[in-house]
């Protein structure tokens, strides 16, 4: 098939992004999940919306606070994780796999290359 699964990258807003065949899957990092605490609700983005990097596109509510989720790169929202509607705590259990939030068709793959690698993100967290 020639499917290309990229390495996982991270944003300074504590989101992770992985890309397969020009489709990006996005969620919040395990570190973000830990600092938010128990997540009780997520307002998912609307499928079909075209968004720009840094746009606020959805909200995660934890027992502590509401946090905006930003689009990490430009693109179109093509799918959301509907399982989170009934059980947002999936993000606490498995933030970087089952807890994915939405998928995008990306317009500019250079934006992706500019994000942090896992090692760079770890260093960023230590600062």
């Amino acid at each position: 098939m020639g499917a290309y699964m990229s390495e996982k990258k991270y944003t300074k807003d504590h989101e992770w992004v992985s890309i397969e065949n020009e489709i990006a899957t996005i969620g919040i990092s395990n570190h973000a999940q830990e600092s938010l605490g128990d997540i009780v609700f997520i307002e998912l983005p609307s499928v079909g919306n075209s968004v720009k990097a840094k746009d606020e596109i959805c909200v995660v509510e934890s027992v502590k606070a509401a946090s905006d989720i930003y689009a990490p790169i430009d693109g179109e929202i093509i799918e959301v994780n509907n399982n989170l509607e009934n059980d947002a705590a999936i993000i606490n259990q498995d933030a970087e796999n089952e807890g994915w939030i939405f998928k995008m068709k990306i317009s500019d793959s250079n934006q992706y290359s500019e994000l942090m690698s896992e090692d760079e993100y770890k260093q960023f967290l230590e600062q």
Partner: protein
Amino acid sequence: MPFAGFNMPINYKTGIINEHKNVRNHSGIFDVSHMGQILIENNESYLHKLEKYIPLQLKKLIKNRSHYSFLLNKDGGVIDDLIISNIDIKENSYLYIVYNASRKKEDEEIFISCAPNAEKIYNKNCLFAIQGPDSINVLKNIIDIPNNMNFFDILISKYNNNEIIVSRSGYTGEDGFELSIPNEIAENLITNLLKNENTMLCGLGSRDSLRLEAGLSLYGHELNEKITPIEAGLSWALDKERLEDENLNGNKVLSDQLKNKLSNKKIGLISTSKSMLRDGMTLFDNNNNEIGKITSGCFSPNLKKSIAIGYIISEFNTDNPIFCEIRKKLELVKINNLPFVKKNYKKNGSVYE
């Protein structure tokens, strides 16, 4: 997170919801050493001066009992809410007062002006609360607790030959105890309590969701210097005889408020969606008129919905729908009687009056 000048944990490793449920079902331990604790000699002249601020008959307080009360400013507004107890320590009679960390400066100015030799004890005594239906069993293993001790009773007990102040009280709506423990033995005592596998350390996050479910007010949210205890729905805690006494700050304002209609009322709210109600959100009627604000909101682990306390204008007929502005959208919320979760105190007869 920083809280009133202290670095306090919001939660420990299992999270707010788990800590909250453990307190409702078993027990949990809160380090509340940031709170103010002061001893004031039970001396008639001091009590008379304090009665200017505190709406109780201080000379008539029953020994070994605690009372929920306030410091009032001259307009009857709440400078702080506090727990005041009458206890003997080493054969001297004292008022022992526990007050909010965020109000130490204001409160202590008053305490010292009334009783110059008042002794702040929070630098030498830690304050811990153990809360939940199992608290009594966990605590009885290491400290003598008389069987007839009721909610808001207070006494001096001993641990490793040190005196500790034990009150049956707390701020979660559950049975429980607060322990004022000399610093030197605090770690040993708490470690000993934590040997019970059904109890755990709990942080500020669950303390807030527990008190909110119990409909209890928090200073800086439901209470401040511009709100009187009557407006906050706490007139039960005022000694009505004292409202006739001109020595009491704001006595005229308070007795007028008791007789007349108030401009605002305190209400409980419950979310109809999964959105979270939070402090500061604005409430509207169905014609988009602003009718009030939320003062505290959280996720209720017991009701599995967001709950809140707020104030609305008294003229509003609560049969009509109320909307809360959540991230620029208006969402329907429902009125719910306070408390959201029934209180579970141990008492024979009434705690107050």
